[in-house]
């Protein structure tokens, strides 16, 4: 891998990089520092070079695909817990891996407790979980997290790397794909595997009006991010045989130029992605009275109320309660839409729901193309009656 660039005009030949390289990948050559195949692109040399003579330089070039095998899943930790998207990525990785006979691996980076979380993944049929645990990884720091995952990728050479399209995943993945000079497809909604190990990545484009099918034919690894609640969660398997591999983390690897000053939990209800039952208010909900009706329905069903974009824009909440392309993707057991027209930017982010009930007084509205149960009627007639029945049932 010839990714490291030495600026001979800046290098003062102090040998610091040679000494600090954890993999003995550097040596003094005829024309200055040289790098060999042991390099893991962990960027320790970049960090220790006082002359700033070392940088990463990505070069385009066709790789030998047969050297890149397996699927690596990045396991995000949400301050101590495994982010549930990780289990969905493992599920998807297994499905894709089966087609071409790949193994599924995982990499997890973090501070204390990371190895404990890694153990939990074995039950899901992961062959190896690579653990980078160090107190320097406390919080999320895009730069040194990139270094750690790069270290794992350079060692394992996976064909595919799957990362959750969370705020953390979307911050990490572009750095990784840039460092390896390869392609990254954001927010994939569907993944397929070709016989030749090319990953077929499908995602909405142009605000969801069109689906784009994207390939990375000449580079490896193939990076894809996938939103939470899009893929099927992995099942536990019987007699798992995977192992946890604790990777060597030097202080240099965990060194960051981002200082975490504080982490606060946001006191919160469940995120709408985690809810099993959702009621959505669209612009058909025109007033306070309507709002109270749908709110009452959500509460009585033990779910949450969320909104279409125009409703959020008119001040009814934050984007964390907006379903759609510029909001959240949800996949609850039940979703009841009230006065929602069902524009593609909305419906493409909830049409994976198990049961969709749509209430809209316009028989031609698009929501009826995706609803499982269609009620063409005035929501101000339907919802009060429904509420009344639910409440009497509860009292009984």
């Amino acid at each position, binding site marked *: 891998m010839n990714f490291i660039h030495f600026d001979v005009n800046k290098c003062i030949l102090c040998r610091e990089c040679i000494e600090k390289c954890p993999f003995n990948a550097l040596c003094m050559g005829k024309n200055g520092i040289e790098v060999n195949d042991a390099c893991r692109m962990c960027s320790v040399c*970049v960090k220790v070079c006082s002359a700033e003579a070392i940088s*990463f330089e990505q070069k*385009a070039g066709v790789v030998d695909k047969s050297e890149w095998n397996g699927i690596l899943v990045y396991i995000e930790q*949400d*301050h101590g817990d495994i982010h549930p998207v990780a289990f969905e990525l493992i599920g998807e990785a297994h499905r894709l891996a089966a087609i071409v006979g790949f193994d599924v691996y995982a990499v997890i980076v973090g501070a204390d407790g990371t190895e404990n979380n890694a153990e939990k993944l074995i039950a899901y049929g992961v062959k190896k979980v690579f653990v980078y645990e160090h107190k320097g990884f406390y*919080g999320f*720091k*895009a*730069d040194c997290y*990139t270094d750690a995952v790069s270290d794992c990728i350079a060692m394992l050479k996976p064909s595919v790397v799957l990362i959750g399209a969370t*705020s953390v995943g*979307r*911050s990490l*993945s*572009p*750095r990784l*794909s*840039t460092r390896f*000079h*390869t*392609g*990254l*497809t*954001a*927010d994939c909604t569907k993944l397929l595997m070709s016989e030749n190990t090319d990953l077929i990545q499908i995602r*909405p*484009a*142009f605000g*969801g*009006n*069109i689906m*784009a*099918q*994207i*390939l*990375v034919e000449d580079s490896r690894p193939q990076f894809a991010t996938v939103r939470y609640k899009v893929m099927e969660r992995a099942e536990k398997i019987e007699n798992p045989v995977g192992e946890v591999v604790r990777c060597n983390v030097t202080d240099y690897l965990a060194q*960051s*130029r*981002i*200082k*975490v*000053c504080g*982490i*606060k939990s946001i006191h919160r209800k469940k995120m709408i992605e985690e809810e099993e*039952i959702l009621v959505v208010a669209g612009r058909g909900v025109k007033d306070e009275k309507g709002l109270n009706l749908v709110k009452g329905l959500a509460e009585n*069903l033990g779910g949450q109320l969320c909104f279409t974009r125009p409703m959020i824009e008119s001040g009814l909440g934050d984007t964390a309660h907006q379903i759609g392309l510029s909001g959240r993707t949800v996949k609850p057991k*039940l979703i009841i839409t009230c006065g929602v027209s069902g524009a593609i930017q909305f419906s493409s982010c909830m049409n994976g729901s198990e*049961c969709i009930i749509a209430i809209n007084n316009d028989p031609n509205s698009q929501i009826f193309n*995706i609803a*499982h149960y*269609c*009620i063409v*009627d005035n929501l101000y*007639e*339907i919802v009060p*009656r*429904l509420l009344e*029945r*639910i409440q009497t049932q*509860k009292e009984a």
Partner: protein
Amino acid sequence: MKIIVCIKQVPATMKVEVDAESGTLKRIGQNAKTNPYDLYAIEAALRIREQVGGSVTALTMGPQQTEEMMRDAYMMGVDEAVVMSDPKFAGSDVLATSFTLFQGIRLLGGADLIICGKQTTDGDTAQIGPAIAEHMGIPHVAWVSNIERVTTDLISVIQKTGSFIQESEMKFPCLITVDKDIFVPRLPSYRLGLATANKNIRFISFKDLSDKNMTRYGLIGSPTKVEKMFQPESSDGQEYINGTSIEKADSIFELLKNQKII
């Protein structure tokens, strides 16, 4: 303090259709506007300049017709507007776009702080910012929702990570991408418009850049290839519930009861 804001022109409407026969895109409407998320980036840059002094440069890569967007940027108060435009840049994906912008930033003499929007409404990837940071070898924080403190040598920002919020501090040079609602973007000012009417927009093309390796720009420098575009399918298995309003409501009730939801 030198701040560079990366902004992009996007189609004013997202209405596109695929021609069923040829499989190519039929774009309806040619109007363009500034990516709405980038207005927050400009606003953040201007506020930082007001606080610690310095200059704000707006940078874009795109077709020549970005003049209007750059005039708007001048009218908001940026000091310099730079457009990177060249047929060789066409067809760039994330890697090639971020590399080109990195080359542009380098040509401009670098920056203490680079600010990007959270995402674009057409690309919608939120990847360009972090990718630029990686090319430059500088740290970044994405989706910043609040700027806590900024001095001449460091910035402290708030970002949401999972179900927590994290406050992070970085020394310059660094990059941030800002979330919507960080500030309310100011409107273009008529007065500034008059004052900057004769101000130049600087154009940069391929031949100006120091790295002239063609394999890193445009379509050739883009590892991702869009194989095809298609209209999303609609699902089936539907049932219309009929009757009077009361009967319909009762049917939903029975349905929910059968599914053990109530």
